[in-house]
């Protein structure tokens, strides 16, 4: 990312925006699938019952908070690693 000139930077930014959109959609789909898998296991009815719906809501909240926390730690660790000269003994 370092050696790019201004016009290369712009091109790169454009591609990153597309990627971010995809990342967001993947995150969203993971969220739906995970909360569905964990919360919905009764197929004697065709609509969600209250307990399942409550589970889904809590699942979404917890998942989003978890992702946020993981993202923060990841960035900290990544920054630390890059600053440390990247590799131990280098």
């Amino acid at each position, binding site marked *: 990312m370092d050696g790019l000139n201004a016009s290369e930077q712009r091109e790169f930014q454009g591609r990153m925006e597309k990627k971010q959109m995809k990342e967001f*959609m993947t995150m*969203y789909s993971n969220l739906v699938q995970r909360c*569905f898998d964990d919360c919905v296991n009764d197929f004697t009815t065709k609509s*969600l019952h209250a307990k399942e719906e409550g589970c889904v809501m809590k699942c979404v909240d917890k998942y989003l908070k978890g992702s946020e926390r993981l993202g923060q730690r990841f960035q900290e660790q990544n920054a630390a690693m890059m600053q440390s000269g990247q590799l131990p003994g280098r």
Partner: protein
Amino acid sequence: MSFLFGGGRPQLSSAEKIAAAETEVEMISDMFNRLSQSCTKKCIPPEYREPDLNKGESVCLDRCVSKFFEVNLKVSEKMQGEAAQRGGAGGGMSGFGM
């Protein structure tokens, strides 16, 4: 998918419009793949005693699709609500159907 693409964005180039339509199809197809994976696992036991879907499996698949859509809708509403609270753009990503 106005939630994603900003319903009222003024003018998109051809390339952008095609890309947006493509993204929409990709998202629907990704959702279908995930739904298939989850519902197959939940409804079809890995024994395969007969080549046909039996009654129980069929009904289970039908209901599984319904419930998956409902979960998708709930999640989508919840996230829009939160985006709106944070002063987000509004608009609406109403599940698979954009």
